[in-house]
């Protein structure tokens, strides 16, 4: 008998499909990625729209809830059985990474073309609103993977997958303390890598609260 994953059907309309698509993708079906991409994009834009509606300082609790909701809608982590959750954590973090990086690449490209966008970016940076450079992070993470693959996976799961320390620990089958240590070293290394590689030192992955 084939092992069957135990994802709980979520309350939303399509997470079931996401699970199936994730499975197909992890088994090498590239068409699944094509189907997953718009789903992640939609979630991303839904989130962005809500930021635009609610953007006010001091709403970090609500922000956290929104992000959690977005992740939950993509993959209903909490309700999975442990054994298979681990697999899905890993796969979905990888997937979200891939799609967000692709998205960021496209946006960067677009900004490159439009004069307006570039100037807006500069205003933002000068004004202290540091925006993400996910593409540079992705490159740095690839370098980190050469050095210490587990640390890269910790970053992938925590940052891209939105997992907690405990969850990451369970996926990687290490103690939470180890994850904390990996996390702090990786963060320091990546930060140095990104700020070092960019002499202006301004582009970072810090987000405004």
């Amino acid at each position, binding site marked *: 008998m084939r092992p069957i994953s135990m994802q709980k059907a979520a309350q939303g309309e399509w997470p*079931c499909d996401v699970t199936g698509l994730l499975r197909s993708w992890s088994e090498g079906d590239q068409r699944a990625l094509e189907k997953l991409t718009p789903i992640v994009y939609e*979630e991303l834009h839904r989130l*962005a729209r809500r930021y635009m509606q609610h953007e006010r300082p001091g709403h970090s609790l609500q922000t956290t809830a929104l992000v959690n909701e977005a992740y939950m809608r993509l993959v209903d982590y909490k309700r999975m*059985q442990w054994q298979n959750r681990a697999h899905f954590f890993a796969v979905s973090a990888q997937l979200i990474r891939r799609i967000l990086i692709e998205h960021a690449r496209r946006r960067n490209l*677009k900004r490159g073309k439009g004069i307006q966008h570039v100037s807006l970016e500069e205003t933002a940076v000068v004004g202290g609103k540091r925006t993400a450079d996910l593409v540079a992070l992705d490159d740095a993470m690839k370098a980190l993977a050469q050095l210490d693959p587990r640390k890269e996976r910790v970053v992938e799961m925590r940052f891209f997958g*939105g997992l907690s320390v405990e969850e990451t620990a369970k996926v990687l089958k290490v103690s939470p303390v180890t994850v904390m240590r990996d996390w702090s070293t990786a963060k320091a290394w990546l930060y140095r890598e990104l700020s070092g590689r960019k002499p202006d030192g301004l582009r970072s*992955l810090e987000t405004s609260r």
Partner: protein
Amino acid sequence: MDSDRWKQVDSLLQAALERPESERDKFLRQACLGDAELESEVRTLLASSEEAGSFLENPAMEVAAQDIAHTKNNQGSSLKGFHAGQVISHYRIVDKLGSGGMGVVYKAEDVRLQRMVALKFLPDEVADDPQALSRFQREARAASALNHPNICTIYEVEEFEGQPVIVMELLDGQTLKQCIRGKALPFDELLDYGIEMSDALAAAHAMGIIHRDIKPANLFVTKRGNSKILDFGLAKLGPSTDSLAMETAAPTVTADASLTGAGNVLGTVSYMSPEQIRAKPLDSRTDLFSFGVVLYEMATGRLPFGGESSGAISDCILNRVPTPPTRLNPELPAELERIIGKCLEKDRNLRYQHASEIRADLQRLQRDSDSGRATFTTVNSTLQLARSSNRWMAVVTVVIVGLVASALLAWRLGGPHRSVTLASEYIQLTNFNDSATAPALSSDGRMVTFFRGGAHFLGSGQIYVKLLPDGESRQLTFDSNAKYDPVFTPDGSRVAYTGVSFANTVWETWTVPVLGGPPALLMANAAGLSWIGPDRVLFSEVEAGTALHMGIVTAKENRAEERSIYFPAHERAMAHYSWLSPDRNWVLIVEMNGATQWQRCRVVPMDGRSAGVEVGPEGACAAAAWSPDSQWMYLNMSVDGSSHLWRQQWGQRAPQGNPEQITFGPTEEEGLAVASDGKSLIASVGVRQSSLWTHDAAGDHAVSLEGVAEAPRLSPDGKRLYYLLRKSSSSDVRELWRRDLASGKSDPLVTEQRIADYDVSRDEARVAFTVRMAGESRIFLAATDRSAPPRLVVRGGDLVSFSPGQLFFRQLGGKANYLARVQEDGSGLTRILDTSVVEVGGVSPDGEWATAGARFASEIGTFAVAVRNGARRRICAGACFVQWSADGKYMYVSLTSRFSAAAVTRKTYVIQIPHGFGLLDLPASGLDRASDAELAGIQSIPQADVSPGPDPQTYAYASAAFRGNLFRIPLH
């Protein structure tokens, strides 16, 4: 850096971080033992760590989303800066007109052509998604080809700095939404707009362009009083309609904050057609339904299908008949009400089939009211009762059909009648004790060929021929290959049939001489073949490179000049039979969907220009034929489990009028052929029989029983068999019996009842069963030792299952059915789901999971529902029957609904459930749609609706067979 070195760096960094900041410097100096490079490495990391702050602490989704929000906010302010005079490409911005879900709209001057235009920038969701973008470009280019005075013209589709822009006609006026604002429009305006817009729809549909989002916000009225349809081709954009096919900013509308958020979705749902809500493939008729909603709103100022939530609105659209418009606006003519009602038919085959028909009816109404001849009404007239797909309604329909049948019978006894066929006039042509089915006539009408023995489709029977009226039946084939669909060659010298060898699944057409002789191969990869000329054939072919994608093609007998006519959209679907209309324009088709279920009959144009339309009632089409004048289609269809003949008029391009059932009664029909004079048809008429079987490691064993036995259930130990027994096939008394399989002794448990369904408690002490009496379904409980008479548990319920201490069942409401449970003593009746259900299946032995077919917003299928909290998990995308073994170790999923005779799939999956876990995750597509890979390793049984025994090798099932002979049925 090598790995040891890195480990050293890592551990020193961690050790430093564990120390208070003040001690770190000293610690590093000591720990690095003068290795300057090491020390520098750790120190820079330490510095980075201290600086990093919130770096990476917010999840990537948030970072990316905030980046978008941030850019958009700036973009918004920058676009406001598109002041008069600013030039984009060759357009000079004049003014910002509005923004909404579909983007931002500007008024601009085309500098080159010196005309005013509207520029619409699409939202990022579209711009960022390459697939959505290319789809948009395709659609918009198609729409830009539309040139009609009542369609807002799209001039160009361009890209500006990576941002797609639509350049379109600039309009001055307001949307219909703004015109209506809760009030009915003046009647003459309604007619003007209605005629213009139906004409515009007709033009678009003729070019194959469907709008998909017709609603007042997309309809525009110019200051000069002309109506325009906006945004053709845009509704299909994006990953889902709810996020993108939203309120569209009309060119002259200023930004409207209320046009965002949930209200959008509600607004959109209100105008959706039933097929849109069911997420079925759409054709142009979806626009006609939405247009009907708009007409209704123009006529009354109100929406026909209202509700608090999109779910409630969807339910209304699917199941409710709207308040007659004349009740809301007594000044309306009855004819308008009829027109609106015909637009709002839920079954699209009963709706207007073309926008031009609506236009014609509205124009006629306009002419008549201009000349004062329109009949105005204040009396209550009702909208045409829209056919509901609701199962309860189907039951009502059957009852009505039954009543009609008896009324016809009474009529016949009483005097003149108008029924199409009369059982008393049937002339029996064959007299076999098994079955003769699938008749086909020779072109001179003097010979009939047919299939004898067993099931016709891919059956094990043989091909026969008979000279009419009383020649001897002669067997023509003798081999053991599966075969079906015999037809005569044009000269009547041979019979062609489809032969299938299952060893390698090859579909071939063979011929055999009518005077007897060896069969000869006519064409490989050809099935369901018939002649449409001396040398030209129409047949089904499996598409090259696919496993089973079968469509209809035509070619010469030597396969020259082959041309495809119709292939079903689904790559596993198969179109098996085809009949060309005598006027040679249309082909009637019988097909299976991707889940190997027979579909409704279909008519497609012979030139293959479109996929045509479905015809006949909701049900499974088995065979069809044309009348000689091509005016009528005769359809052999299984509706609600009963196979009869129907007919429907064909009006060139679309069916006319409702399908009409023409044969009735306890006998059923299988296959038909219409005589060349059109005055009679030949069909197989007979009865379906059912036999019971058990299966164990040694194989299948027939259970010999008197009468018609159905619905077998095996005891948990596999030693006793429960079943329903009808003494004869025409009796509707169904008793519950139990048989001891070892001794062969049978005992009645419940007698003299019309039992519809039942379940046995796990300890076999009690049975629960459903009886239909006095127009109501009632659930009773009885002791198997017959110590007391059956006791009524609940009224208005059926499809009952035991769970510990309780009964689960389908609660039958007047308008909807629900999944419910009740204590065995009849107390504590509760619904498990608020959502209505279609069918109800088994319950897990621990009482944790119940199963039901239902729709949750856009998610349709058969679900397991957690009894405790209503959480659900989809098992099949369509109807399947789910049950558990008594020990709870296996779940059995049969790919058929519980009482549907329509499905040909005879398959039950047996899925092992890991210890201690109530239910599994299954392929997301549903077991019935899952790929072979997803199903790999899952055991299956080649029978539908098996009853589980003590282990997966032991089960019971019923096998139904048809026993019938050919009859000639005169037509009136």
